[in-house]
């Protein structure tokens, strides 16, 4: 089951339990299917062995100490005003009489901001200085279409018609050679990774193999022959084959058991797999992960109940478990959250918010100057239309991450963009 889900939900806990059960059951079913397939009888011994047994290439990270960027997309447009609350802006409480997060419940408060209480699992990282937030970020102009905004923010090259996402352009600047250099967790290549450089996509690490290739190389040889062409599927098949071959070390590595456990959510499972990929050193340097369900037009709720509490709690517990699980590898990994746009300042009549503009970005892990809030606060207005205005282009935050961690030139990754200094990365 994909984690990329928009939400529509009540706030009642019974139903939320049923939903969790749904996800759980669906995953069990899928796992069962995978296991059953593996039980198919061996075909070994048939015909001449004309092809070499498929080996596991020794491709590894060009630089085992190299950096890894995890881009975590909060799909559906997260409400940054609930995640990082501007408690000192009186308009916030006036505009949200029912869903505002009370000041006394906020964590990690400074004079202006505080974290949603459901983010408590991240407090140790905040206090250790490995987690920061940049507020009032986004694109230069509002775009309230989920689909157009996702394309624009992930392509990140306004005016260009080339279908190359910013992470795909980043791949082009990195020296590595692994077919897993750019890896997406899920089923589809996200726009950010789409482009001329190969991208591997994987649902679950354990499934990232070509069925029927255990005995000899015949199936792979026939697949390569069948898909010699230049079309997108030919490329996907070839990337699948080379990626799955390289992926062996990650499949062989058992899942970590961090002291703070992963939630059973799709995000928790995905980040657990990302940790395996990173720790196994198979050469993944840019990894994308999605968390859905942020489109909270109804039942975002309060600190006691609702989608915000649930989603924020899942986000925080998953990230906390991920960095704990990475162990020493955490020194190489920087995680950034990004959403296609933010929500409006004023709440609607359904304990929710409609499509807006500015948002918050979290930056966590290696190289982060954490424990503080960045960005310039524009102040809020309380009308039906009012938005959190964008004072920091999201590309400025990403620029700091990629230039400081990968030493690449911003001109290639964000063509024509002149970044402003944010200060979030050392």
């Amino acid at each position, binding site marked *: 089951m994909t984690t990329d889900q928009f939400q529509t939900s009540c706030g009642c806990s019974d139903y939320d339990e*049923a939903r969790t059960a749904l996800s759980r059951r669906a995953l069990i079913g899928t796992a069962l299917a995978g296991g059953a397939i593996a039980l198919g009888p061996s*075909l070994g011994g048939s015909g001449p062995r004309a092809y070499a047994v498929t080996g596991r290439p020794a491709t590894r990270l060009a630089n085992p100490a190299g950096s890894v960027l995890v881009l975590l997309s909060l799909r559906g447009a997260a409400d940054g005003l609930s995640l990082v609350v501007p408690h000192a802006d009186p308009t916030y409480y006036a505009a949200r009489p029912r869903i505002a997060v009370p000041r006394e419940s906020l964590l990690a408060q400074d004079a202006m901001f505080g974290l949603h209480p459901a983010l408590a699992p991240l407090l140790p990282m905040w206090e250790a200085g490995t987690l920061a937030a940049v507020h009032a970020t986004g694109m230069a102009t509002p775009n309230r279409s989920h689909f157009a905004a996702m394309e624009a923010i992930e392509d990140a090259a306004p005016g260009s018609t080339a279908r190359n996402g910013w992470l795909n352009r980043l791949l082009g600047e990195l020296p590595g050679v692994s077919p897993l250099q750019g890896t997406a967790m899920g089923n589809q290549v996200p726009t950010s990774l789409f482009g001329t450089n190969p*991208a591997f996509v994987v649902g679950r690490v354990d499934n990232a193999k070509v*069925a029927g290739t255990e005995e000899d190389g*015949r199936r792979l040889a026939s697949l390569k022959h069948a898909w010699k062409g230049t079309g997108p599927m030919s490329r996907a098949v070839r990337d699948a084959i080379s990626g799955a071959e390289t992926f062996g070390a990650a499949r062989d590595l058992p899942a970590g058991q961090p002291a703070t456990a992963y939630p059973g959510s799709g995000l928790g499972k995905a980040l657990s797999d990302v940790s395996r990929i990173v720790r196994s050193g198979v050469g993944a340097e840019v990894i994308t992960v999605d968390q859905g369900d942020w489109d909270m*037009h109804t039942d975002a709720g309060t600190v006691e109940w609702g989608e915000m509490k649930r989603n924020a709690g899942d986000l925080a517990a998953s990230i906390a478990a991920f960095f704990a699980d990475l162990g020493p590898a955490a020194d190489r990994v920087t995680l950034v959250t990004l959403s296609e746009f933010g929500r409006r300042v004023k709440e609607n009549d359904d304990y929710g918010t409609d499509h807006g503009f500015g948002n918050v970005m979290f930056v966590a892990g290696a190289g982060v100057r954490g424990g503080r809030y960045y960005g310039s606060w524009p102040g809020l207005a309380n009308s039906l239309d009012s938005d959190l205005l964008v004072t920091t282009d999201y590309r400025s935050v990403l620029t700091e991450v990629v230039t400081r961690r990968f030493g690449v030139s911003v001109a290639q990754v964000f063509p024509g963009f002149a970044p402003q200094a944010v200060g979030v990365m050392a």
Partner: protein
Amino acid sequence: MARNTAGLLTPAQRHLVTRFGYGVDATLAEDVRRAGGASAWFELQLTRPGAFPDGAAEGVRRWWPDLDRGPAELWKRQVEEVRGGWEVMEDYGRWLLVRRIRTRRPVLEKMAEFWEAMLHVPVSGDAQFTWRVDYGDTVRRHALGRFDELLAATTTHPAMLIFLSGATSTKRAPNENLGRELLELHTLGTGNYDEDDVKASARILTGHHVDLWETWKASYVEEDHYRGRVKVRGFSAKNAKADGRRVTEEYLHYLAHHPDTAHHVCERLATKFVRDDPPQSLVRRLAKVYLRNDTAIVPVLQALVASKEFRTSAGDKLRDPSEDVVATYRALGVEVGRPRSGDSGANAILWQASGLGLSPHAWPRPDGTPVRNDVWASPARALGSMSMHWSMAGGWWPTAELDYRTPSAWVPAKKPIRFADLVDEVSRDLLHRPASKHLVETACLATGCGRKEKIDREHGLYQWGFPRLLAAVLDSPDHLAC
């Protein structure tokens, strides 16, 4: 199922019935021949689908009795932990998949699938499961009718109201979710409206209500309806009455007949049924037909199929995950029986589709199952397809209540057959086309057999290697593209 050994349809005929069907098997080929060719078959499918008796597909619905329970009963059973809504939604996906395997009315089925994806209410959601089967049935009734009627039936359907927050939207602070996606996804398309249009659209739609978490009854609540002048693009209404349903009707009628809607709908049709990035000249032509015919769908499909762009697009579309699964069952001639356990093929087929990336209508976002190839041309999809083809070719999983054919269906009992001829037989049977030289080469690599090698029932290929041949055919572009 009988082997597909009768004469092949011509390539042009095969193209039409493949693009608008779920894979050519013997029954479909016979239907086409009896109708007097693919064009005549298509015309009948559009205008008189009842001419094709479909008992085998219709009867499948009884396998999953929850599909015919009402919203209140489904909810009661969920609360009382008799059966979760998510399980009912799984049944819905299974029903669709098995129906698509069996149906002799693939054009109706395909169009129901198309509209259900465009006017999308995901099955993997929350409250809307109570109304979701009824929603699908509603779409199916209009699938070959008129878009204006389809739009009216779907926009105010309880499932859509629940999914896009219309069910609880009120005049006090109208929820913009449905009003916006109606404009962006269902009618005018991105960039053809502004934020004031969204607000007015949301205001018009206030008043439509569903009693969530209680009776699940739909009603119209006059005191929730926003009153006062509303304007969306060229649509304007005084909207003075407490009952705004008439304004909703007029608004949806206006949207359905808007040239931007015509373009948006026809572009999606052409993307699905012709090719990705279809020529704008074709889209414009289809949009004209749509408007000239008062949003009737059949003339648009007739024009689409008659176009040069369609005729020259054979093989340009990649089957999506569900299409791949259904086509694989049809190609292999696997008989699906009534499920008796969770592991039965008719149940497990849903995991097969999700293993390829998506089960029917489970796309989590309101934009619905994508109709472009590039979304599905991913390494994860490739690995999923190869895994499913491999297990089906061997008949290893699923197995319960399924009947697979064995190699004896292809390898003659008495006289040996040359390997290249055998590949040709298998290709004609599975794909309804002769084996290309490329496919024969692929099959040689897959099995280790030479082109002229004689295959009989003592041969290793027959004894235990046959899944390699079937998988090579199913893994090929000849099967994955349509």
